[in-house]
């Protein structure tokens, strides 16, 4: 038993109030007990703590420790540049933290958008007198008056009504105004017609009602609560980056400690070993990874914006690439939302013919709320299409509308009473089953005959055949009455009608959708259609666009509500699924279960009620024409409302994952070249080959722009022919490690060491001779190592641009950002090597041109070695394909 099922007296009794409302004193007490009628923000972590948490995660703590040791080292051994190093590390921590914090802060906006939708003033009865108070001060038990244009302040049980109609769009997404009654209703509260919900708008009429729920406990508050509390979860990329940093850091710290111990055992001093340990850790920890990934995602989101997909959360860019299921609306997303009358059908050949002075088009034209404003038709797309077709056929008709019984989702029809040429008619239109149910006669040729069973069967066949063509079908009926005053209720009006015929409207599919769906099939992405239309219409459209090929599972809204989670789970594991006659609010349940099954879900939506599902999904996709709340809750906004744009975005997302993989290999390759000279420094007692500041200059300076260049590589041809990345398959696997650390890394290291020893040898150094750390020759040698790594990375960046395709096929100079990046890399290196400031900060010294020239062949060696590997990989792929096809034959 709920408030909607009670009579008016029981409502007063239950809420301990009366027709005179509450006393001021009681209202005050209830306000103290139930609180203000407002959307409260769920208690969240204060912003400052959120920012602090960005400074205290695993990688940040590791960097803090490194910075602390650097400051300590500066304190004990001043003048060795450790202060600069410490400050540089702190700078890296803060840059990373600020990036992450800004992203989190944007999420907070969703709730603020909801707050704006609540009203300010409301008329209530206090001590029997009507008084206007702030909407935030109403309490359960208050008797409120609602007038046209009011926003409903709280959830209200209607007790008196004067033809009130409310627009529930902010709550349900249904734009059609619906009437409210005072009669008890035994169904669910949310479906009840005797409730006016908070946040909705009174379109016409007036009513009086008792407030039973305020603030966060209203239906509107419930959505706000869910929007505010649903934790979006960590994106796959965030998880993967966390994993990578932990794995790599564990390797780095272990290596650092191992070599620290070895150094101690072979008699190196503590500070030498310490410096070495810090160096080896910093050389291996991918400090540049987080900022590079963030910047790359930001650039990815810019590219998507050009393709009409606006990305709000940066990490969503990559998450898109791992999507395995898309739950999509039909109207406007798969179709164009351009309704057009395609077929008119009745029980006789000419369904548009007049019978006794009236035709089906009269109903279509007059039982219609479309308005002509400055020559344009304004209204709901279906009504506009009907109006246009009818007006084109019969022109404008002089008439007067006397009454309207608006459409509601339970009756599934609307009716109006109009007077035309001294005759009064009731005209009705609605869902075929609803109109047939109230019809007792029908048009047959030029006659009106009783509607018998065989005619009814024929009518059902007729509208089914229209629906099977993908048409949205509406039925029309009418009757003559003596006067509108005789009709007290819609039941009276809509009794014993004369069935006129059907109109089938077409909402053509978007031309690019079929190709996009085919792309999804090849890419192993399932598409689930969730629509408010009938199952036949949905299935016909789905067939037309290639969404269903085999026998699809079709679940209707009523059936969906009866299903347990286990049953729904079974249904959702089917290959082809359509949910029909659904409302936006059901999406959250579908998304939850899909996520529980381990799927990565993208879901589309545009209403306020879509917001929780949009937020819960891995990727919430809002339409550009959707409500603000939906846009705020979504991760991506489609500027053109087009399904194909989602698929384009997925393609971009996949490309970005591959690109991140490419620059991880690129980063790993230099880590070997940075670490090996250090190991030789400790084991072979060679002069210091690279300073920690030089490592940071490479990791966070010279190679940042070329790495970003890898981030903007366009998708490779085969990217949408592979299934979605399986859960658990990360950025790093054995292949990546081998290619980065061993294959490219070792080839590069040979070149780097060659330059290092070349400079030492030229400077007169002999093996076993120990040089002081500030010896000019040591500066020159470490500069040669630094330059060696920079040059090897130039070869590497070209090598990493593709996975298996030859670089010559995609065009060696095709990526301008990489070219600009290389130029910037060379200029920055020249500054570090030849400018006194660069020399001072990074402990470098000028080196002759011969070292540059010496390194060029090694740079090409890296590039061509990778080209040979790619050729062998392609050759292997061809052989495997031939073998497979032979096996099939």
């Amino acid at each position, binding site marked *: *038993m*709920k*408030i*909607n099922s*009670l009579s008016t007296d029981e409502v007063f*009794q*239950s*809420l*301990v109030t009366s027709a005179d409302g509450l006393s001021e004193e009681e209202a005050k*007490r*209830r306000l*103290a*007990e*139930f*609180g203000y009628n407002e959307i409260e923000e*769920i*208690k969240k972590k204060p912003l400052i703590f959120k920012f602090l948490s960005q400074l205290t995660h695993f990688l940040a703590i590791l960097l803090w420790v490194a910075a602390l040791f650097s400051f300590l080292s500066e304190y004990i051994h001043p003048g060795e540049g450790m202060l600069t190093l410490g400050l540089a590390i702190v700078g890296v921590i803060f840059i990373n933290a600020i990036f992450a914090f800004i992203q989190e802060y944007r999420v907070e906006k969703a709730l603020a958008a909801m707050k704006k939708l609540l009203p300010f003033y409301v008329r209530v009865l206090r001590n029997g007198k009507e008084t206007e108070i702030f909407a935030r001060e109403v309490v*359960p*038990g208050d008797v409120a008056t609602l007038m046209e244009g009011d926003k409903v302040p709280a*959830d209200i*049980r209607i007790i008196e009504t004067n033809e009130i109609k409310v627009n529930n769009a902010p709550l349900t997404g249904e734009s059609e105004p619906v009437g409210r009654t005072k009669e008890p209703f035994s169904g669910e*509260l*949310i479906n009840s017609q005797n409730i006016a919900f908070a946040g909705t708008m009174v379109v016409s009429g007036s009513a009086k009602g008792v407030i*039973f*729920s305020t603030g*966060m*406990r209203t239906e509107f*508050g*419930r959505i706000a*609560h*869910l929007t505010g*509390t*649903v*934790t979006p979860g*960590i994106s796959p990329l965030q*998880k993967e980056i*966390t*994993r990578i940093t*932990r*794995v790599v850091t*564990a390797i780095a710290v272990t290596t650092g400690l191992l070599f620290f111990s070895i150094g101690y055992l072979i008699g190196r001093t503590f500070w030498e070993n310490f410096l070495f340990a810090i160096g080896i850790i910093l050389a291996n920890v991918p400090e540049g990874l987080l900022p590079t990934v963030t910047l790359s995602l930001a650039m990815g989101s810019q590219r998507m914006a050009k393709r009409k997909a606006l990305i709000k959360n940066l990490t969503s860019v990559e998450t898109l690439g791992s999507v395995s299921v898309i739950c999509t609306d039909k109207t406007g997303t798969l179709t164009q939302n351009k309704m057009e009358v395609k077929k008119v059908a009745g029980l006789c050949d000419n369904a548009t013919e007049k019978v006794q002075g009236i035709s089906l088009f009269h109903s279509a034209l007059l039982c219609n709320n479309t308005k002509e404003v400055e020559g344009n038709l304004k209204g709901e797309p279906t009504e506009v299409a009907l109006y246009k077709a009818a007006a084109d056929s019969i022109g404008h008709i002089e008439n007067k509308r006397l009454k309207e019984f608006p459409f509601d989702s339970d009756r599934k029809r609307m009716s109006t009473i109009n007077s035309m040429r001294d005759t009064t008619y009731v005209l009705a239109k609605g869902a075929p089953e609803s109109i047939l149910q109230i019809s007792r006669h029908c048009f047959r040729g030029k006659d009106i005959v009783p509607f018998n069973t065989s005619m009814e069967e024929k009518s059902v066949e007729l509208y089914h055949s229209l629906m099977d063509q993908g048409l949205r079908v509406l039925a029309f009926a009418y009757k003559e009455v003596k006067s509108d005053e005789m009709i007290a209720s819609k039941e009276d009006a809509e009794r014993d009608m004369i069935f006129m015929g059907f109109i089938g409207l077409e909402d053509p599919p978007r031309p690019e959708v079929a190709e996009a769906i085919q792309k999804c099939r090849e890419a192993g992405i399932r598409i689930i259609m969730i629509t408010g239309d009938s199952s036949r219409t949905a299935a016909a459209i789905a067939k037309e666009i290639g969404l269903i090929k085999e026998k699809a599972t079709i679940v209707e809204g009523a059936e969906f509500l009866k299903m*347990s*989670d286990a049953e729904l*789970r079974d249904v959702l594991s089917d290959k082809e699924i359509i949910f029909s006659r659904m409302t936006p609010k059901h999406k*959250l349940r579908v998304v*939850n279960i899909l996520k*529980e*099954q*381990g799927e990565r879900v993208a879901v589309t939506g545009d209403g306020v009620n879509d917001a*929780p599902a949009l937020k819960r999904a891995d990727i919430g996709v809002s339409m550009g024409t959707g409500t603000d709340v939906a846009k705020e809750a979504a991760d991506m906004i489609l500027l053109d409302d087009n399904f194909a744009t989602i698929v384009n975005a997925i393609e971009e997302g996949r490309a970005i994952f591959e690109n991140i993989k490419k620059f991880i290999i690129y980063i790993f390759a230099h880590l070997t070249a940075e670490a090996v000279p250090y190991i030789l420094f400790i084991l072979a007692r060679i002069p210091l080959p690279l300073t920690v500041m030089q490592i940071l200059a490479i990791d966070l300076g010279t190679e940042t722009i070329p790495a970003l260049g890898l981030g903007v590589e366009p998708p490779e041809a085969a990217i949408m022919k592979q299934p979605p990345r399986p*859960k658990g398959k990360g950025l790093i696997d054995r292949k990546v490690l081998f290619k980065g650390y061993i294959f490219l890394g070792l080839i590069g290291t040979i070149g780097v060491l060659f330059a290092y020893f070349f400079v030492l040898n030229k400077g007169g150094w002999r093996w076993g001779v120990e040089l002081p750390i500030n010896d000019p020759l040591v500066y020159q040698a470490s500069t040669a190592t630094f330059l060696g790594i920079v040059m090897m990375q130039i070869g590497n960046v070209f090598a990493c641009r593709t996975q298996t395709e030859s670089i010559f096929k995609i065009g060696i100079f095709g990526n301008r950002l990489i070219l600009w990046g290389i130029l910037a890399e060379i200029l920055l290196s020249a500054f570090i090597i030849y400018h006194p400031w660069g020399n001072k900060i990074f402990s470098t010294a000028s080196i002759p041109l011969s070292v540059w020239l010496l390194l060029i062949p090694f740079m090409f060696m890296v590039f061509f070695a990778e080209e040979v590997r790619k050729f062998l990989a392609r050759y292997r792929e061809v052989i495997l394909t031939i073998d497979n096809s032979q096996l099939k034959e």
Partner: protein
Amino acid sequence: MYRKILTAVNEHLNSEIAARYAMNLARAAGAKLYLCFVAGKGRQVAIFDRAEEAIKRIFIDAKKMAIDIEAITETGDPVKKISEIVRHEEIDIVFAATRREDVEKRFYAGTVARDLSLALPCSVALVRVVHMGRIHPKKILVPLKARIDHLTERSYFSAAMANAFGSNIYLLHATKPITSFFHGEVHLTPVEWEKKMSKDISYFMEHLNKYKIIHEKRLIPGKAGRSITIEAAAKRFDLVIMGASERSLLSSIFKGNPVEVVLRETPCDLIILKPRHEDK
């Protein structure tokens, strides 16, 4: 188990709603209902009148339901007086409404509700009333911990409430997500979670089966308090029944307290049960 039920009534509307829950439980359990109003010293006459009116209304409703009912009016310290009545009448369970101010202070930092649950020798059901539209709960959410104390009484109470309103029960166990150092949060399917269901929850379900109460269960990873409120809001539950917190004030401050979170954020009425009947 419950033969005598006492419900504390005062001038506030929420105490009357709490009394309605007690009244329905009394009907389902065939118990005698005691309505008790303890007026603090120096209270205004108007407050006294309002409480009397509330008692009258409940009295009439209870009589309609053929419940054996008795009204008691006293003056003095509510906790002390109710405690005396409980001992004298051998009351099995006391219903009391929590106040908004209880929630705004820290719930477990010396409120009347807290004092009642600590001082009384019988079980205590603290009712937080937030939604006046759901008069008879049809969907009851019962969050459970892995280890359940007073399992027999808890299951009896939940079953009796479900019986009283003809409701279905949904059991929810929110558990810590499984994580590994390198992989972060590990995702498990519902079937895999099922295997991790504790024995106590299975026993609880056996008890519900014994009372022929229709129930479903759900195990989800996440923070208990937040998961309960999300579940209650998302699936439009009418009532949440959960056990009282056993965390100390210090532990609540540092580790958080799910009961406090649900008290603050519950989208529907909430009953916090402090059971005293030992398992047999």
